[in-house]
């Protein structure tokens, strides 16, 4: 997992190299015509609405010619948006709070994905094969794998453990990519893993036991990830941002109302097995950002030492 490091280094470079990026001299697209827009996303099920919305013409109908740029793990997304390579990006809320605390000029434009808010029936969870772990509180002192250290995974797992009355400070977090987690758990290299769909279903099918729904324990209707842009684009082309937000909101509402079509669109941009697609737990895609839950994630980020001072949530959110 070198990707978070890569993005950090790239973000750091952006801070020290002012004037980087090539979009400054690009002419603004002609009004009325179709405007090419690149969005940095990760090819996972969370972003099904944007693919579905593109298919449904929600973007083209608003003069947006949408292209998805998929970087694995999103190493390129935040630097890509800041430098103007992408107009918009998809990121989890904690990453954006951290980026904001480092002074990156980012602004959220729409919701991305939310927890189902159903305990033990969310698209994210902590799975174990260790019989001594019965509840989240038992994770104290255990080795738990997350995809990125000091991010939304460990932050929300600590919240789970705290809620169950355990001591989160003694959890030993290890970094592993989601695809490597089922094998690591089966081989006993870690005591528990944090996985999201489709790996959650796969890990449980292989004999894992779900002990905590970390997103559900963190806040009701937790906003997990959002779409964002740079403050520069917001200033230079507020009309584009407005149209993108509208199209995104329509896409989210449509995907949420048509889960079968959302499952279907997964076959177009992922390689998830069709049988798995039918059974996996879909997240929720509300058009509204749950501001209260973002505040919760911000407080957790401070509590866990991911950021040094309370983030300005109002400045980040639209």
């Amino acid at each position, binding site marked *: 997992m*070198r*990707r978070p490091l*890569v993005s950090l*280094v*790239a973000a750091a*470079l*952006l801070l020290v*190299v002012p004037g*980087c*990026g*090539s979009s400054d001299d690009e002419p603004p697209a002609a009004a009325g015509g179709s405007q090419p827009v*690149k969005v*940095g996303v*990760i*090819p*996972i099920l969370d972003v099904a609405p944007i693919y579905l919305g593109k298919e449904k013409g929600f973007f083209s109908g608003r003069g947006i010619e949408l292209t998805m*740029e*998929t*970087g*694995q793990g999103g*190493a*390129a997304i935040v*630097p*890509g948006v800041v*430098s103007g*390579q*992408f107009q918009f990006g998809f990121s989890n809320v904690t990453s954006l709070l951290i980026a904001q605390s480092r002074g990156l000029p980012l602004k959220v434009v729409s919701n991305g994905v939310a927890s189902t808010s159903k305990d033990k029936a969310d698209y994210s969870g902590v799975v174990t094969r260790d019989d001594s772990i019965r509840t989240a509180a038992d994770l104290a002192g255990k080795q738990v794998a997350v995809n990125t250290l000091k991010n939304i995974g460990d932050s929300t797992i600590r919240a789970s453990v705290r809620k169950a009355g355990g001591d989160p400070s003694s959890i030993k977090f290890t970094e592993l*990519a*989601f*695809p490597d987690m*089922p*094998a690591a758990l*089966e081989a006993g290299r870690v005591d528990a893993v944090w996985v999201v769909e*489709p*790996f959650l279903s*796969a890990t449980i099918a*292989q004999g894992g036991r779900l002990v905590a729904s970390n997103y559900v324990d963190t806040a009701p209707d937790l906003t997990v990830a959002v779409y964002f842009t740079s403050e520069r684009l917001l200033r230079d082309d507020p009309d584009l941002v407005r149209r993108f937000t509208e199209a995104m909101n329509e896409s989210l509402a449509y995907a949420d109302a048509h889960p079968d079509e959302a499952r279907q669109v997964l076959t177009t*941009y*992922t*390689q*998830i*097995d069709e049988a*798995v697609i039918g059974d996996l737990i879909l997240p929720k895609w509300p058009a509204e950002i749950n501001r209260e839950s973002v505040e919760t994630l911000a407080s957790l980020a401070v509590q866990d030492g991911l950021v040094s001072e309370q983030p300005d949530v109002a400045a980040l959110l639209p």
Partner: protein
Amino acid sequence: MRTGRRRWWQGAAGLAGFLLLLELIPRAGVVPDRYLPPTSRVAGALAGELGRPAFWAALGDTLAGWAIGLALAVGGGVALGLLLGSVPALRAATSSTIEFLRPIPSVALIPLAVLLFGTDLRSKLLLVVYASFWQVLIQVLHGVQDVDPVAMDTAHSYGLGRWARIRHVVWPTALPYAVTGFRLAAAVALVLAVTAELIIGSPGLGKEIAVAQTSGAVPAMYALVVVAGLLGVGVNLAARALERRVLAWHPSTRREAAA
């Protein structure tokens, strides 16, 4: 040619044995087959890939990045190598800089590539060119050093100009080195093209591998890895064929053919 044929059969037998082993290990339960699918299932996934237009587009993207990057690296490496090699003062002035830049791993430039070019082809080219350029440059520099001083003096005595000396004395000496550099660069360029796609997400086979991985589609992921391996074999065979063709006159090639 009999030894050649026998070697071909031995190579094929070795490969078949390897594939059989990969079939048996997961079937025997040594490794769970969901993490290492047997050869037959990977072959099935490979057949599935061959039917996807996205696969062919990805293959084309990888080959395009490889070919363009390699062409730039070879062109630049040969030109700069001949220039630096023929002017001793330039060579002395640049040698420590080259020795400093050459060991920097191309992947260390990924943050820079992403910053400058995002995920498009130019990011991939930056990595590919940076990695393969040195292979060519260093070989050509060595080649130019290897020029026989007597031949050079003779050319001088016959009144050959600078250009004619490069064309008739330096180039024939440096060519075998340049071709070796090309062959090394061809392999390195492919490695870096796939790496760039895998990590940065530039379109291509590497990106397809990443998508299969994040989708938990293990057989498809291995199938794509196999394709990347086959590409490597193909690139090496093509580079060797080219080497034999370009250097047909050279003693090293002639001796090999006579054996």
